[in-house]
Protein backbone atom coordinates (compact mmCIF):
# COMPACT_ATOMS: atom_id res chain seq x y z
CA UNK A 1 0.00 0.00 0.00
CA UNK A 2 1.46 3.34 -1.03
CA UNK A 3 1.39 5.92 1.75
CA UNK A 4 3.98 8.65 1.48
CA UNK A 5 5.41 10.05 4.71
CA UNK A 6 7.83 12.82 5.64
CA UNK A 7 9.19 11.91 9.05
CA UNK A 8 12.80 11.89 7.90
CA UNK A 9 12.64 13.58 4.53
CA UNK A 10 10.65 16.74 5.19
CA UNK A 11 13.67 18.99 4.76
CA UNK A 12 15.27 17.04 1.94
CA UNK A 13 16.28 19.44 -0.80
CA UNK A 14 15.71 22.52 1.35
CA UNK A 15 18.75 24.79 1.39
CA UNK A 16 20.14 24.85 4.93
CA UNK A 17 17.67 22.19 6.05
CA UNK A 18 20.56 20.35 7.73
CA UNK A 19 21.21 23.15 10.24
CA UNK A 20 20.03 23.16 13.83
CA UNK A 21 17.72 26.20 13.61
CA UNK A 22 15.09 24.70 11.28
CA UNK A 23 15.45 21.37 13.05
CA UNK A 24 14.72 22.80 16.48
CA UNK A 25 11.95 25.01 15.13
CA UNK A 26 10.04 21.95 13.96
CA UNK A 27 10.25 20.31 17.37
CA UNK A 28 13.77 18.90 17.13
CA UNK A 29 15.52 17.62 20.28
CA UNK A 30 12.24 17.53 22.22
CA UNK A 31 12.23 13.73 21.86
CA UNK A 32 15.72 13.38 23.34
CA UNK A 33 14.68 15.65 26.17
CA UNK A 34 11.58 13.54 26.75
CA UNK A 35 13.53 10.25 26.63
CA UNK A 36 16.11 11.46 29.16
CA UNK A 37 13.23 12.16 31.52
CA UNK A 38 12.05 8.54 31.33
CA UNK A 39 13.65 5.44 32.81
CA UNK A 40 15.85 3.32 30.55
CA UNK A 41 13.26 0.53 30.67
CA UNK A 42 10.54 2.91 29.54
CA UNK A 43 12.67 4.08 26.63
CA UNK A 44 13.32 0.51 25.51
CA UNK A 45 9.62 -0.31 25.85
CA UNK A 46 8.66 2.67 23.70
CA UNK A 47 11.12 1.58 21.02
CA UNK A 48 9.75 -1.96 21.15
CA UNK A 49 6.21 -0.69 20.69
CA UNK A 50 7.31 1.00 17.46
CA UNK A 51 8.40 -2.33 15.95
CA UNK A 52 11.38 -0.82 14.17
CA UNK A 53 13.01 -3.63 12.23
CA UNK A 54 16.71 -2.88 11.76
CA UNK A 55 17.17 -0.80 8.64
CA UNK A 56 20.67 -2.14 7.95
CA UNK A 57 19.49 -5.26 6.18
CA UNK A 58 19.05 -8.03 8.72
CA UNK A 59 15.73 -6.65 10.02
CA UNK A 60 16.20 -7.44 13.70
CA UNK A 61 13.77 -5.63 16.01
CA UNK A 62 15.58 -2.60 17.43
CA UNK A 63 13.94 -2.38 20.85
CA UNK A 64 14.58 -6.08 21.40
CA UNK A 65 18.24 -5.63 20.46
CA UNK A 66 18.53 -2.78 22.96
CA UNK A 67 17.03 -4.99 25.67
CA UNK A 68 19.94 -7.46 25.27
CA UNK A 69 22.37 -4.96 26.72
CA UNK A 70 23.45 -5.69 30.28
CA UNK A 71 22.45 -3.09 32.90
CA UNK A 72 25.03 -0.32 33.23
CA UNK A 73 27.76 -1.20 35.73
CA UNK A 74 31.40 -0.24 36.03
CA UNK A 75 32.13 -0.97 32.37
CA UNK A 76 31.43 1.72 29.78
CA UNK A 77 28.82 0.88 27.14
CA UNK A 78 28.92 2.08 23.55
CA UNK A 79 26.45 2.86 20.80
CA UNK A 80 27.97 2.37 17.36
CA UNK A 81 26.10 3.64 14.34
CA UNK A 82 26.71 1.77 11.12
CA UNK A 83 27.09 4.37 8.37
CA UNK A 84 29.32 2.25 6.18
CA UNK A 85 26.61 2.10 3.48
CA UNK A 86 28.35 -0.01 0.88
CA UNK A 87 25.81 -2.63 -0.16
CA UNK A 88 25.50 -2.20 -3.94
CA UNK A 89 22.27 -0.42 -4.80
CA UNK A 90 21.93 1.19 -1.36
CA UNK A 91 22.09 4.96 -1.01
CA UNK A 92 19.53 5.94 1.62
CA UNK A 93 21.64 6.53 4.76
CA UNK A 94 23.70 9.07 2.91
CA UNK A 95 20.58 11.23 2.39
CA UNK A 96 19.92 11.29 6.15
CA UNK A 97 23.49 12.30 6.97
CA UNK A 98 23.61 14.98 4.30
CA UNK A 99 20.12 16.43 4.66
CA UNK A 100 18.90 15.57 8.15
CA UNK A 101 21.99 14.96 10.30
CA UNK A 102 20.36 16.26 13.49
CA UNK A 103 17.83 13.41 13.41
CA UNK A 104 20.77 11.03 13.68
CA UNK A 105 22.48 13.01 16.44
CA UNK A 106 19.24 13.25 18.42
CA UNK A 107 18.64 9.55 17.82
CA UNK A 108 22.11 8.84 19.19
CA UNK A 109 21.20 10.54 22.47
CA UNK A 110 18.03 8.43 22.77
CA UNK A 111 19.73 5.18 21.74
CA UNK A 112 22.77 5.70 23.94
CA UNK A 113 20.60 6.46 26.95
CA UNK A 114 18.50 3.34 26.27
CA UNK A 115 21.53 1.06 26.31
CA UNK A 116 23.41 2.83 29.09
CA UNK A 117 26.08 4.45 26.92
CA UNK A 118 27.64 7.88 27.24
CA UNK A 119 29.37 7.81 23.87
CA UNK A 120 28.24 7.07 20.35
CA UNK A 121 30.57 6.49 17.42
CA UNK A 122 29.18 6.99 13.94
CA UNK A 123 31.26 4.86 11.56
CA UNK A 124 31.02 6.60 8.17
CA UNK A 125 32.66 5.16 5.09
CA UNK A 126 35.51 7.44 4.11
CA UNK A 127 34.21 8.36 0.67
CA UNK A 128 31.19 10.19 2.13
CA UNK A 129 33.03 13.43 2.81
CA UNK A 130 29.91 15.61 2.71
CA UNK A 131 28.15 13.29 5.19
CA UNK A 132 31.07 13.51 7.59
CA UNK A 133 31.20 17.29 7.33
CA UNK A 134 27.45 17.65 7.94
CA UNK A 135 27.59 15.29 10.92
CA UNK A 136 30.52 17.09 12.53
CA UNK A 137 28.72 20.36 11.90
CA UNK A 138 25.61 19.01 13.61
CA UNK A 139 27.65 17.69 16.53
CA UNK A 140 29.26 21.10 17.07
CA UNK A 141 25.90 22.85 16.89
CA UNK A 142 24.36 20.41 19.37
CA UNK A 143 27.32 20.84 21.74
CA UNK A 144 26.93 24.61 21.62
CA UNK A 145 23.26 24.33 22.55
CA UNK A 146 24.19 22.00 25.39
CA UNK A 147 22.30 19.05 23.94
CA UNK A 148 25.55 17.11 23.98
CA UNK A 149 28.17 17.36 26.71
CA UNK A 150 28.10 17.01 30.47
CA UNK A 151 24.43 17.71 31.19
CA UNK A 152 22.17 17.50 28.12
CA UNK A 153 18.84 19.23 28.84
CA UNK A 154 19.97 19.65 32.43
CA UNK A 155 19.91 15.88 33.00
CA UNK A 156 22.86 14.07 34.53
CA UNK A 157 23.53 11.92 31.48
CA UNK A 158 26.83 13.00 29.92
CA UNK A 159 26.75 12.35 26.22
CA UNK A 160 29.28 12.60 23.38
CA UNK A 161 28.97 11.72 19.71
CA UNK A 162 31.99 11.18 17.43
CA UNK A 163 32.40 10.52 13.74
CA UNK A 164 34.82 7.74 12.88
CA UNK A 165 35.83 6.82 9.35
CA UNK A 166 36.72 3.70 7.47
CA UNK A 167 39.13 3.50 4.56
CA UNK A 168 37.39 1.65 1.77
CA UNK A 169 36.29 -1.89 2.57
CA UNK A 170 32.72 -3.12 2.08
CA UNK A 171 33.18 -5.82 4.70
CA UNK A 172 33.48 -3.15 7.41
CA UNK A 173 29.68 -2.83 7.17
CA UNK A 174 29.44 -6.20 8.89
CA UNK A 175 29.04 -5.25 12.51
CA UNK A 176 31.97 -7.12 14.04
CA UNK A 177 34.33 -6.13 11.20
CA UNK A 178 33.15 -2.59 11.84
CA UNK A 179 34.07 -2.92 15.52
CA UNK A 180 37.55 -4.18 14.65
CA UNK A 181 37.94 -1.29 12.26
CA UNK A 182 36.75 1.16 14.92
CA UNK A 183 39.40 -0.25 17.25
CA UNK A 184 42.11 0.50 14.69
CA UNK A 185 42.54 -2.99 13.28
CA UNK A 186 42.08 -4.71 9.95
CA UNK A 187 38.35 -4.94 9.23
CA UNK A 188 37.98 -8.68 9.62
CA UNK A 189 34.72 -10.04 11.05
CA UNK A 190 34.87 -11.72 14.45
CA UNK A 191 33.50 -15.11 15.34
CA UNK A 192 30.16 -14.82 17.20
CA UNK A 193 29.53 -15.46 20.06
CA UNK A 194 30.49 -13.42 21.93
CA UNK A 195 27.97 -10.93 20.55
CA UNK A 196 28.60 -7.18 20.66
CA UNK A 197 26.13 -6.77 23.53
CA UNK A 198 28.58 -8.74 25.69
CA UNK A 199 31.91 -7.99 24.06
CA UNK A 200 31.78 -5.17 21.52
CA UNK A 201 33.79 -2.01 20.94
CA UNK A 202 36.97 -2.02 23.05
CA UNK A 203 35.73 -5.23 24.65
CA UNK A 204 32.75 -3.43 26.20
CA UNK A 205 28.99 -3.99 25.86
CA UNK A 206 27.98 -2.42 22.55
CA UNK A 207 24.96 -2.04 20.30
CA UNK A 208 25.47 -1.60 16.57
CA UNK A 209 22.58 0.03 14.72
CA UNK A 210 22.07 1.30 11.21
CA UNK A 211 21.86 5.06 10.56
CA UNK A 212 18.18 4.98 9.67
CA UNK A 213 17.25 2.79 12.66
CA UNK A 214 18.69 5.46 14.98
CA UNK A 215 17.57 8.50 12.97
CA UNK A 216 13.92 7.44 13.16
CA UNK A 217 13.96 7.36 16.98
CA UNK A 218 13.16 11.06 17.46
CA UNK A 219 10.00 10.42 15.44
CA UNK A 220 9.12 7.41 17.58
CA UNK A 221 9.34 9.51 20.74
CA UNK A 222 7.43 12.35 19.14
CA UNK A 223 4.38 10.48 17.87
CA UNK A 224 4.60 7.56 20.31
CA UNK A 225 5.83 4.03 19.66
CA UNK A 226 2.48 2.36 19.06
CA UNK A 227 1.09 5.18 16.94
CA UNK A 228 4.22 5.13 14.80
CA UNK A 229 4.07 1.38 14.35
CA UNK A 230 0.50 1.73 13.11
CA UNK A 231 1.65 3.88 10.21
CA UNK A 232 2.69 0.58 8.70
CA UNK A 233 0.44 -1.78 6.77
CA UNK A 234 2.39 -4.58 8.46
CA UNK A 235 1.88 -3.46 12.06
CA UNK A 236 0.23 -6.82 12.83
CA UNK A 237 3.32 -8.62 11.56
CA UNK A 238 5.52 -6.63 13.95
CA UNK A 239 7.04 -4.52 11.20
CA UNK A 240 6.19 -0.96 12.05
CA UNK A 241 6.46 2.63 10.97
CA UNK A 242 7.75 4.24 7.84
CA UNK A 243 11.12 3.97 6.14
CA UNK A 244 13.25 5.12 3.27
CA UNK A 245 12.99 3.26 -0.02
CA UNK A 246 15.52 3.64 -2.78
CA UNK A 247 15.21 2.74 -6.42
CA UNK A 248 18.01 2.76 -8.98
CA UNK A 249 18.86 1.25 -12.35
CA UNK A 250 16.24 1.21 -15.07
CA UNK A 251 13.52 3.49 -13.72
CA UNK A 252 12.55 6.94 -14.93
CA UNK A 253 12.87 8.64 -11.54
CA UNK A 254 15.59 6.94 -9.52
CA UNK A 255 15.99 8.23 -5.98
CA UNK A 256 15.15 7.88 -2.30
CA UNK A 257 11.48 8.04 -1.24
CA UNK A 258 9.94 7.86 2.20
CA UNK A 259 6.78 5.83 2.73
CA UNK A 260 4.98 3.71 5.29
CA UNK A 261 6.18 0.12 5.63
CA UNK A 262 4.07 -2.13 3.45
CA UNK A 263 4.80 -0.51 0.12
CA UNK A 264 5.03 -3.02 -2.72
CA UNK A 265 7.83 -3.33 -5.23
CA UNK A 266 5.38 -2.50 -8.00
CA UNK A 267 4.51 0.78 -6.26
CA UNK A 268 8.18 1.53 -5.71
CA UNK A 269 9.03 0.92 -9.35
CA UNK A 270 5.99 2.40 -11.09
CA UNK A 271 4.45 4.97 -8.72
CA UNK A 272 7.54 6.35 -7.02
CA UNK A 273 10.20 5.42 -9.58
CA UNK A 274 8.07 6.62 -12.49
CA UNK A 275 8.04 3.31 -14.33
CA UNK A 276 10.60 1.41 -16.33
CA UNK A 277 13.16 3.28 -18.37
CA UNK A 278 12.29 3.36 -22.08
CA UNK A 279 8.97 1.67 -21.22
CA UNK A 280 10.52 -1.71 -21.77
CA UNK A 281 9.44 -4.91 -20.03
CA UNK A 282 10.94 -5.70 -16.63
CA UNK A 283 13.66 -8.33 -16.56
CA UNK A 284 13.88 -8.54 -12.79
CA UNK A 285 14.41 -6.55 -9.63
CA UNK A 286 16.89 -6.93 -6.78
CA UNK A 287 14.80 -5.68 -3.86
CA UNK A 288 17.24 -4.47 -1.21
CA UNK A 289 20.90 -4.40 -2.10
CA UNK A 290 22.86 -6.86 -4.19
CA UNK A 291 22.96 -9.57 -1.52
CA UNK A 292 19.24 -10.18 -2.06
CA UNK A 293 18.28 -12.72 -4.72
CA UNK A 294 16.77 -11.19 -7.85
CA UNK A 295 12.94 -11.43 -8.13
CA UNK A 296 10.91 -11.92 -11.29
CA UNK A 297 7.41 -10.62 -11.91
CA UNK A 298 6.12 -14.11 -12.77
CA UNK A 299 7.02 -15.45 -9.32
CA UNK A 300 3.82 -16.05 -7.35
CA UNK A 301 3.26 -15.79 -3.60
CA UNK A 302 2.22 -19.07 -2.05
CA UNK A 303 2.36 -19.32 1.75
CA UNK A 304 0.26 -22.08 3.23
CA UNK A 305 -1.09 -22.32 6.76
CA UNK A 306 -0.85 -18.64 7.65
CA UNK A 307 -4.05 -16.59 7.48
CA UNK A 308 -2.15 -13.33 7.30
CA UNK A 309 -0.79 -14.24 3.89
CA UNK A 310 -4.16 -15.17 2.42
CA UNK A 311 -4.65 -11.77 0.71
CA UNK A 312 -1.36 -12.13 -1.17
CA UNK A 313 -1.45 -15.77 -2.21
CA UNK A 314 -1.69 -16.18 -5.95
CA UNK A 315 -0.39 -12.67 -6.60
CA UNK A 316 2.94 -11.67 -8.12
CA UNK A 317 5.77 -11.08 -5.64
CA UNK A 318 5.78 -7.50 -6.93
CA UNK A 319 2.44 -7.02 -5.16
CA UNK A 320 3.60 -8.36 -1.82
CA UNK A 321 4.09 -5.63 0.82
CA UNK A 322 7.79 -5.10 1.44
CA UNK A 323 8.37 -6.36 4.96
CA UNK A 324 11.05 -8.37 6.74
CA UNK A 325 8.81 -11.37 7.37
CA UNK A 326 6.60 -11.15 4.30
CA UNK A 327 9.78 -11.47 2.25
CA UNK A 328 11.41 -14.09 4.44
CA UNK A 329 8.33 -16.31 4.39
CA UNK A 330 8.19 -16.22 0.60
CA UNK A 331 11.85 -17.16 0.16
CA UNK A 332 12.91 -13.62 -0.66
CA UNK A 333 15.05 -11.16 1.25
CA UNK A 334 14.10 -7.57 2.02
CA UNK A 335 17.57 -6.22 2.76
CA UNK A 336 17.90 -2.44 2.73
CA UNK A 337 14.74 -1.60 0.73
CA UNK A 338 16.87 -0.04 -2.00
CA UNK A 339 15.86 -1.82 -5.19
CA UNK A 340 17.88 -2.22 -8.38
CA UNK A 341 15.61 -2.46 -11.43
CA UNK A 342 16.71 -4.23 -14.61
CA UNK A 343 14.79 -3.88 -17.85
CA UNK A 344 14.93 -6.41 -20.66
CA UNK A 345 17.84 -4.67 -22.38
CA UNK A 346 20.08 -6.19 -19.69
CA UNK A 347 22.01 -9.37 -20.21
CA UNK A 348 21.49 -11.16 -16.88
CA UNK A 349 24.74 -13.08 -17.32
CA UNK A 350 26.70 -9.84 -17.52
CA UNK A 351 24.79 -8.46 -14.52
CA UNK A 352 25.73 -11.55 -12.51
CA UNK A 353 29.33 -11.20 -13.66
CA UNK A 354 29.38 -7.59 -12.44
CA UNK A 355 28.24 -8.62 -8.96
CA UNK A 356 30.52 -11.67 -8.85
CA UNK A 357 33.46 -9.33 -9.37
CA UNK A 358 32.23 -7.15 -6.52
CA UNK A 359 32.04 -10.07 -4.08
CA UNK A 360 35.42 -11.52 -5.06
CA UNK A 361 36.95 -8.08 -4.60
CA UNK A 362 35.36 -7.51 -1.20
CA UNK A 363 35.77 -10.90 0.53
CA UNK A 364 38.06 -10.33 3.50
CA UNK A 365 39.69 -13.68 2.85
CA UNK A 366 39.55 -15.14 6.36
CA UNK A 367 37.40 -18.16 5.46
CA UNK A 368 38.56 -20.50 2.74
CA UNK A 369 35.06 -21.28 1.34
CA UNK A 370 34.28 -17.58 0.91
CA UNK A 371 37.68 -16.50 -0.39
CA UNK A 372 38.07 -19.38 -2.84
CA UNK A 373 34.38 -19.71 -3.68
CA UNK A 374 33.92 -16.05 -4.61
CA UNK A 375 37.01 -16.24 -6.80
CA UNK A 376 35.77 -19.42 -8.42
CA UNK A 377 32.36 -17.97 -9.21
CA UNK A 378 33.88 -14.84 -10.71
CA UNK A 379 36.25 -16.86 -12.89
CA UNK A 380 33.40 -19.11 -13.99
CA UNK A 381 31.20 -16.17 -15.01
CA UNK A 382 34.14 -14.67 -16.89
CA UNK A 383 34.57 -17.96 -18.71
CA UNK A 384 30.86 -18.15 -19.48
CA UNK A 385 30.89 -14.67 -20.98
CA UNK A 386 34.05 -15.50 -22.97
CA UNK A 387 32.29 -18.60 -24.31
CA UNK A 388 34.84 -20.89 -22.67
CA UNK A 389 32.77 -22.60 -20.00
CA UNK A 390 31.24 -26.07 -20.18
CA UNK A 391 27.84 -27.17 -18.87
CA UNK A 392 29.56 -29.24 -16.16
CA UNK A 393 31.33 -26.16 -14.90
CA UNK A 394 28.08 -24.22 -14.89
CA UNK A 395 26.47 -26.96 -12.83
CA UNK A 396 29.31 -26.84 -10.32
CA UNK A 397 28.19 -23.37 -9.27
CA UNK A 398 25.55 -25.02 -7.07
CA UNK A 399 28.20 -27.04 -5.30
CA UNK A 400 30.50 -24.09 -4.82
CA UNK A 401 27.68 -21.91 -3.49
CA UNK A 402 26.51 -24.54 -1.04
CA UNK A 403 30.09 -24.96 0.17
CA UNK A 404 30.08 -21.28 1.07
CA UNK A 405 26.63 -21.11 2.66
CA UNK A 406 26.62 -21.77 6.38
CA UNK A 407 30.38 -22.42 6.46
CA UNK A 408 31.77 -18.98 7.08
CA UNK A 409 32.50 -16.61 9.94
CA UNK A 410 30.15 -13.90 8.75
CA UNK A 411 27.05 -13.42 6.63
CA UNK A 412 29.04 -12.06 3.69
CA UNK A 413 29.47 -15.61 2.39
CA UNK A 414 25.73 -16.26 2.20
CA UNK A 415 25.15 -12.76 0.89
CA UNK A 416 27.50 -13.47 -1.99
CA UNK A 417 26.44 -17.02 -2.78
CA UNK A 418 22.63 -16.75 -2.70
CA UNK A 419 22.23 -13.98 -5.28
CA UNK A 420 24.70 -15.72 -7.62
CA UNK A 421 22.73 -18.95 -7.34
CA UNK A 422 19.50 -17.06 -7.99
CA UNK A 423 20.90 -15.61 -11.21
CA UNK A 424 22.00 -19.02 -12.48
CA UNK A 425 18.69 -20.65 -11.51
CA UNK A 426 16.36 -17.97 -12.79
CA UNK A 427 18.26 -17.22 -15.99
CA UNK A 428 19.46 -20.72 -16.78
CA UNK A 429 18.61 -20.48 -20.51
CA UNK A 430 20.70 -17.32 -20.93
CA UNK A 431 23.69 -18.93 -19.20
CA UNK A 432 23.32 -22.07 -21.30
CA UNK A 433 23.09 -20.00 -24.44
CA UNK A 434 26.59 -18.62 -23.79
CA UNK A 435 27.91 -22.12 -23.17
CA UNK A 436 26.31 -23.51 -26.34
CA UNK A 437 27.47 -20.64 -28.49
CA UNK A 438 31.01 -21.01 -27.16
CA UNK A 439 31.02 -24.73 -27.85
CA UNK A 440 29.69 -24.24 -31.36
CA UNK A 441 32.39 -21.67 -32.06
CA UNK A 442 35.11 -23.95 -30.79
CA UNK A 443 33.81 -26.82 -32.88
CA UNK A 444 33.65 -24.67 -35.97
CA UNK A 445 37.19 -23.47 -35.41
CA UNK A 446 38.42 -27.01 -34.92
CA UNK A 447 36.71 -28.17 -38.11
CA UNK A 448 38.15 -25.28 -40.11
CA UNK A 449 41.66 -25.93 -38.87
CA UNK A 450 41.56 -29.65 -39.66
CA UNK A 451 43.34 -32.18 -37.51
CA UNK A 452 47.02 -31.31 -38.05
CA UNK A 453 49.37 -30.61 -35.12
CA UNK A 454 49.03 -26.90 -35.61
CA UNK A 455 45.25 -27.14 -35.45
CA UNK A 456 45.33 -29.20 -32.29
CA UNK A 457 47.51 -26.82 -30.37
CA UNK A 458 45.38 -23.85 -31.33
CA UNK A 459 42.22 -25.66 -30.36
CA UNK A 460 43.58 -26.57 -26.95
CA UNK A 461 44.63 -23.00 -26.43
CA UNK A 462 41.13 -21.86 -27.14
CA UNK A 463 39.83 -24.30 -24.58
Amino acid at each position, binding site marked *: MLKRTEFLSKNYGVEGGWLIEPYVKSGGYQSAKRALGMTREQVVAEAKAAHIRGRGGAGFDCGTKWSFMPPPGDKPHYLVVNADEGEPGTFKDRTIMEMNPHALIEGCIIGAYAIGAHAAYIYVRDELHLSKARLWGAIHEAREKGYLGERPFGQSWAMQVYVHTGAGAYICGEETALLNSLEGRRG*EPRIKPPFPAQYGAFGMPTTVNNVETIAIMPTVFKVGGDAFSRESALHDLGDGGARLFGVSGHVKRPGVYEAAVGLTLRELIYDLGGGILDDRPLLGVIPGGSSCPIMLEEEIVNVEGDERFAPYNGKSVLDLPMGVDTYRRTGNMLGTCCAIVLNDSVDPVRAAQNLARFYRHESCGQCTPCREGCGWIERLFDKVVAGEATLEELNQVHQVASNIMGNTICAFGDGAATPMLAFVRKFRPQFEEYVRRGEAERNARRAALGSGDHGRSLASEAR
Partner: protein
Amino acid sequence: MAFSLNEAQEREFEDILARYPNQMAACIPALHFCQDANENWVSPEVIQFVAERLSLPTAHVLGVVTFYTLFNQEKPGKHQVWVCRTLSCALRGSEEILAHCEKRLGVHAGGTTQNGRITLRTAECLASCGSAPMMQVDKDYYENLTIEQVDQILDRLMQEA
Protein backbone atom coordinates in the same frame (compact mmCIF):
# COMPACT_ATOMS: atom_id res chain seq x y z
CA MET B 1 62.93 12.14 4.65
CA ALA B 2 61.25 11.90 8.00
CA PHE B 3 57.59 12.81 8.16
CA SER B 4 56.34 15.42 10.58
CA LEU B 5 53.35 17.65 11.21
CA ASN B 6 53.32 21.41 11.69
CA GLU B 7 51.97 23.02 14.84
CA ALA B 8 48.39 23.41 13.67
CA GLN B 9 48.36 19.87 12.35
CA GLU B 10 49.73 18.61 15.65
CA ARG B 11 46.78 20.14 17.47
CA GLU B 12 44.34 18.44 15.11
CA PHE B 13 46.19 15.18 15.55
CA GLU B 14 45.79 15.46 19.31
CA ASP B 15 42.08 16.19 18.81
CA ILE B 16 41.72 12.89 16.97
CA LEU B 17 43.41 10.98 19.77
CA ALA B 18 41.10 12.52 22.35
CA ARG B 19 38.02 10.91 20.78
CA TYR B 20 38.94 7.37 21.77
CA PRO B 21 39.46 5.38 24.94
CA ASN B 22 42.80 4.09 23.65
CA GLN B 23 45.44 5.09 21.12
CA MET B 24 45.06 2.17 18.73
CA ALA B 25 41.55 3.29 17.80
CA ALA B 26 43.00 6.44 16.27
CA CYS B 27 45.01 4.37 13.79
CA ILE B 28 42.75 4.76 10.74
CA PRO B 29 41.84 8.43 11.24
CA ALA B 30 45.50 9.20 11.99
CA LEU B 31 46.59 7.49 8.77
CA HIS B 32 43.99 9.47 6.82
CA PHE B 33 45.16 12.68 8.38
CA CYS B 34 48.81 12.00 7.61
CA GLN B 35 48.02 10.75 4.10
CA ASP B 36 46.25 14.05 3.40
CA ALA B 37 49.28 15.92 4.73
CA ASN B 38 51.67 13.83 2.62
CA GLU B 39 50.48 14.39 -0.96
CA ASN B 40 47.92 11.61 -0.69
CA TRP B 41 50.08 8.68 0.14
CA VAL B 42 51.17 6.63 3.10
CA SER B 43 54.95 6.45 2.79
CA PRO B 44 57.09 4.17 4.97
CA GLU B 45 57.91 7.32 6.96
CA VAL B 46 54.21 7.95 7.59
CA ILE B 47 53.78 4.39 8.82
CA GLN B 48 56.75 4.88 11.13
CA PHE B 49 55.36 8.18 12.40
CA VAL B 50 51.89 6.79 13.13
CA ALA B 51 53.33 3.69 14.80
CA GLU B 52 55.51 5.80 17.09
CA ARG B 53 52.85 8.34 17.95
CA LEU B 54 50.25 5.67 18.77
CA SER B 55 52.74 3.33 20.44
CA LEU B 56 51.87 0.55 18.01
CA PRO B 57 54.15 -2.00 16.36
CA THR B 58 55.05 -0.93 12.81
CA ALA B 59 53.74 -4.29 11.61
CA HIS B 60 50.30 -3.49 13.01
CA VAL B 61 50.10 -0.19 11.16
CA LEU B 62 51.38 -1.80 7.97
CA GLY B 63 48.75 -4.53 8.34
CA VAL B 64 46.04 -1.88 8.59
CA VAL B 65 47.38 0.07 5.63
CA THR B 66 47.39 -2.99 3.38
CA PHE B 67 43.84 -4.04 4.35
CA TYR B 68 42.08 -0.88 3.22
CA THR B 69 41.91 0.22 -0.41
CA LEU B 70 41.98 3.96 0.29
CA PHE B 71 45.49 4.05 1.69
CA ASN B 72 47.93 4.65 -1.17
CA GLN B 73 51.26 2.95 -0.76
CA GLU B 74 52.53 4.76 -3.82
CA LYS B 75 52.19 8.42 -4.57
CA PRO B 76 49.19 8.97 -6.85
CA GLY B 77 48.63 11.79 -9.34
CA LYS B 78 47.69 15.27 -8.14
CA HIS B 79 44.02 14.31 -8.56
CA GLN B 80 42.33 10.98 -8.10
CA VAL B 81 39.33 10.01 -10.19
CA TRP B 82 37.23 6.99 -9.23
CA VAL B 83 34.60 5.73 -11.66
CA CYS B 84 31.97 3.57 -9.95
CA ARG B 85 31.34 0.43 -11.95
CA THR B 86 29.03 -1.63 -9.75
CA LEU B 87 25.64 -2.79 -11.02
CA SER B 88 23.43 0.30 -10.65
CA CYS B 89 26.06 2.44 -12.34
CA ALA B 90 26.78 -0.23 -14.96
CA LEU B 91 23.07 -0.23 -15.87
CA ARG B 92 23.34 3.51 -16.48
CA GLY B 93 26.46 3.50 -18.64
CA SER B 94 29.50 3.45 -16.35
CA GLU B 95 31.39 1.20 -18.79
CA GLU B 96 31.25 3.90 -21.44
CA ILE B 97 32.29 6.54 -18.92
CA LEU B 98 35.29 4.48 -17.86
CA ALA B 99 36.28 3.64 -21.45
CA HIS B 100 36.01 7.31 -22.33
CA CYS B 101 38.23 8.33 -19.40
CA GLU B 102 40.82 5.73 -20.34
CA LYS B 103 40.88 6.97 -23.91
CA ARG B 104 40.96 10.66 -23.02
CA LEU B 105 43.71 10.26 -20.45
CA GLY B 106 45.67 7.61 -22.30
CA VAL B 107 45.88 5.34 -19.24
CA HIS B 108 44.19 2.17 -18.07
CA ALA B 109 42.28 2.17 -14.81
CA GLY B 110 44.89 2.15 -12.06
CA GLY B 111 47.32 4.28 -14.05
CA THR B 112 48.47 7.89 -13.76
CA THR B 113 48.70 10.33 -16.65
CA GLN B 114 52.21 11.09 -17.92
CA ASN B 115 52.11 14.61 -16.54
CA GLY B 116 51.30 13.19 -13.10
CA ARG B 117 48.01 15.08 -12.82
CA ILE B 118 45.38 12.35 -12.71
CA THR B 119 45.25 8.83 -11.36
CA LEU B 120 42.28 6.98 -12.83
CA ARG B 121 40.66 4.28 -10.74
CA THR B 122 37.55 2.17 -10.59
CA ALA B 123 35.40 2.04 -7.48
CA GLU B 124 32.79 -0.34 -6.15
CA CYS B 125 29.40 1.12 -5.20
CA LEU B 126 29.83 4.59 -3.69
CA ALA B 127 26.29 4.89 -2.29
CA SER B 128 25.15 7.14 -5.11
CA CYS B 129 23.28 4.54 -7.15
CA GLY B 130 20.21 6.72 -7.64
CA SER B 131 22.28 9.30 -9.48
CA ALA B 132 24.21 6.91 -11.69
CA PRO B 133 26.51 7.02 -13.52
CA MET B 134 28.81 8.79 -11.13
CA MET B 135 32.41 9.32 -10.24
CA GLN B 136 34.36 10.69 -7.33
CA VAL B 137 37.06 13.29 -7.95
CA ASP B 138 39.27 13.73 -4.89
CA LYS B 139 36.64 14.45 -2.19
CA ASP B 140 33.71 15.39 -4.41
CA TYR B 141 30.97 13.37 -6.07
CA TYR B 142 29.88 14.06 -9.65
CA GLU B 143 26.55 12.45 -10.43
CA ASN B 144 24.15 11.80 -13.33
CA LEU B 145 27.15 12.11 -15.62
CA THR B 146 27.16 12.57 -19.36
CA ILE B 147 30.24 12.12 -21.53
CA GLU B 148 30.29 15.91 -22.08
CA GLN B 149 30.38 16.56 -18.36
CA VAL B 150 33.16 14.04 -17.93
CA ASP B 151 35.15 15.88 -20.59
CA GLN B 152 34.64 19.20 -18.80
CA ILE B 153 35.79 17.73 -15.50
CA LEU B 154 38.87 16.07 -16.99
CA ASP B 155 39.79 19.22 -18.92
CA ARG B 156 39.65 21.25 -15.75
CA LEU B 157 41.78 18.77 -13.81
CA MET B 158 44.37 18.56 -16.57
CA GLN B 159 44.63 22.30 -17.08
CA GLU B 160 44.15 24.07 -13.77
CA ALA B 161 47.23 25.49 -12.13
